[in-house]
């Protein structure tokens, strides 16, 4: 549940970033496509990293064993 929710949050942030890029620097169709590509790539990279770390912790095989004196 938390996974899907956060994925949706990433999607929404990505869409908002696309709109911001379109509004701020609208310099013709080829430049717009270029900015769109960059924003999508950045969003996908960030989401992938978060998703990997989240999935790895969902069903852990190793548990934290505190060290002495903590």
């Amino acid at each position, binding site marked *: 549940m938390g996974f899907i929710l956060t994925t949706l949050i990433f999607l929404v942030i990505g869409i908002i970033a696309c709109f911001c890029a379109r509004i701020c620097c609208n310099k013709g169709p080829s430049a717009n496509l270029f900015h769109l590509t960059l924003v999508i790539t950045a969003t996908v990279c960030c989401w992938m990293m978060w998703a990997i770390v989240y999935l790895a912790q969902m069903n852990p095989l*190793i548990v934290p064993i505190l060290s002495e004196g903590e």
Partner: protein
Amino acid sequence: MGEGGSLPTMDLMRSEPMQLARIIIPMESAHRTISYLGDLGLFQFKDLNSGKSPFQRTFATQIKRCGEMARKLRFFKVQMMKAGLLTLRSAYGSEISLDELEVKLGELEAELIEMNTNTEKLQRAYNELLEYKLVLQKAGDFFHHAQSSATAQQRESEEHHLVEGSMDSPLLLEQEMTTDISKQVKLGYVSGLVPRDKSMAFERILFRTTRGNVFLKQNVVEEHVVDPVQGEKVEKNVFVVFYSGERAKNKVLKICDAFGANRYPFTDDIGKRYQMITEVSGKLSELKTTIDVGTLHWSSAVQAIANQFEQWNNLVKKEKSIYHTLNALSFDVTKKCLVAEGWCPVFATTQIQKALQRATVDSNSQVGAIFEVLHTKESPPTYFRTNKFTSAFQEIVDAYGVAKYQEANPGLFTIVTFPFLFAVMFGDWGHGICLFLATLFLILREKKYSSQKLGDIMEMAFGGRYVIIMMSIFSIYTGFIYNEFFSVPFELFGRSAYDCRDPSCRDATTIGMIKVRETYPFGVDPIWHGTRSELPFLNSLKMKMSILLGVAQMNLGIVLSYFNAKFFQNDINIWYQFIPQMIFLNSLFGYLSLLIIVKWCTGSQADLYHVMIYMFLSPTDDLGENQLFWGQKYLQILLLLLALVAVPWMLIPKPILLKKQHEERHRGQAYAPLQSLDENIDSDSEYKSHDGHEEFEFSEVLVHQLIHTIEFVLGSVSNTASYLRLWALSLAHSELSSVFYEKVLLLAWGFDNVVILVIGIIVFIFATVGVLLVMETLSAFLHALRLHWVEFQNKFYEGDGYKFSPFSFALVSEEEED
């Protein structure tokens, strides 16, 4: 080469379309045309006179003139540095033509040289007079005493000789003795200044050569004296040498010259001496005023030059580059015009035509320049229109190899993936913030630094400021994900998911905690830092993450090769290269990625190493407890077969089809009608067209394809493993950061002593900046670069093009700023 018109164009994805153009310029407007094209900076001239040596070219004399003027300007620069003036950004004064400038430079040079020699002469005379004055003053002090000692010594030595002689021949010498004693002792003397460090040697050599028959008296001069010959301040001694006889005199004079001892006349008479002193003092003050006036004149002349230097320098550089370009054009004698050929971007056509028109109008020429586009099979240069943000990333890609004309540009994705992969290896939001602030400072001072001349390292850092700021922003993000702030985790996004098994927390240090709540929502759970099982967990996480990111980037590379094939309408590449490559990579490493994700989602204890290895060794065996999902065995057998089929699919069909294509293309050509041969001879053969009766060696193509296939197959394993450096560097970074924090800062804190704390903080800051912020940044930068250049780009990039280098005055002035 056709264009894939179905996909919309994107900035930076492919090179701008370029065209080969020919410009025919009438002679009168040639110079002006080239000048305006240089201002525009969008035309790359081809050298049409490449066969000629530099001396055979039309405008060689003009270039020599410019060279002479540049030499004079360099001479002026030396003079300006001597006067301690800096070249100012001169306000644009009046327009001056090259001929006028040449004359003016010649005049100024002659004037300056004359002033310099005069000043030198005057200065030398001045120093000599100073020395003379010193001799007059100092030698007078000890002269008489020295003279009397010298005469006494001379008389003694004579008596000695006489005494000795009288023993041998008493009769003759008695007569001589009487006459000799009555004679007065006549001594000559030489006075002057000798450098102090040579004075002992001077004295010794005088003594030896004259066999002790001279008397030398020296006195120290306290202040340093400026030596007239060398012009430097030296310590000197005043000396007076008394000698008798012609031979002794010659010897003394020679020795004085050898030791660089300057001789000055000296008179016995006190009154005359005082008169001489006043005379010399008068001359000295006269000379001083003359020298001062001369220096003033010189510095005002140099100042006047300094005001105009920048402008003249730019003019000469500009003219030189224009003549170099004019030399590259071919001269058509019959039509009295110059023909230029070169590459320009298609979008620049109107701008170029406007510049040509302006040049025609400005030079009052009757005939306008003609601009025509030529068709050729030559490969055009590659041109990307970059701004200050994207140019740094494009340079990173170009350093490996400039893109072939119109192939997909990896620079597009590098803008995001390069800082991202750097951040995966650097992940610490504290360090990221430091890096961000440092680069922000550079960016805010952009205007100031871009006009200054910076040192080598600063220049590289300044040039890459946008790259570094992207890197720092992504590092802040990955720092939050790894949950490290100078290696300290924080509970920023919710509560940690782990808790003790029972309220007393007895087992926390033996068996460990359990997961009681929802997974920590963003990033690595903060409980992990400092635990004993931290490394096994993080290593497993980061290694799997590296594999997943690596497979994703390699797939992106192969997809880009699909877009390239589609753009160049190369169907063979799509069916017999792209598809088998995708199948091979994904059936092995895509499947591994899938297994990783399934294992994480289900929490199974399957051993993925075992699964992958036995997929190859014994695919039909039962998986047992390594089974992750239903039907896994059959899926594995299917994927193995697909991978096995993909290899010959990559290797064999492409050479065979290429051979068929080649045969088809040339089937018709053997029966071409004879007329076409005549046409070829008549047509304008000015541009070299490599019309392809290309050789087709089947064995060569097959070997090429074999190498390509082996490279891909073996490379898929090695490249995937290469991505594990993402894990390695991130581990190194976090361990170093943790060591500095715990062993320096916390240790210093533990002592409860302010001095030790301060020392600890300083050591921590230096270690963090030196090792983590500088060394780790460079290291992660290098490895991210390697991942892009090798693992990403070898899936699709050819990179054997050449860069568009237009004739532009802006670039010329940048070049020569050395």
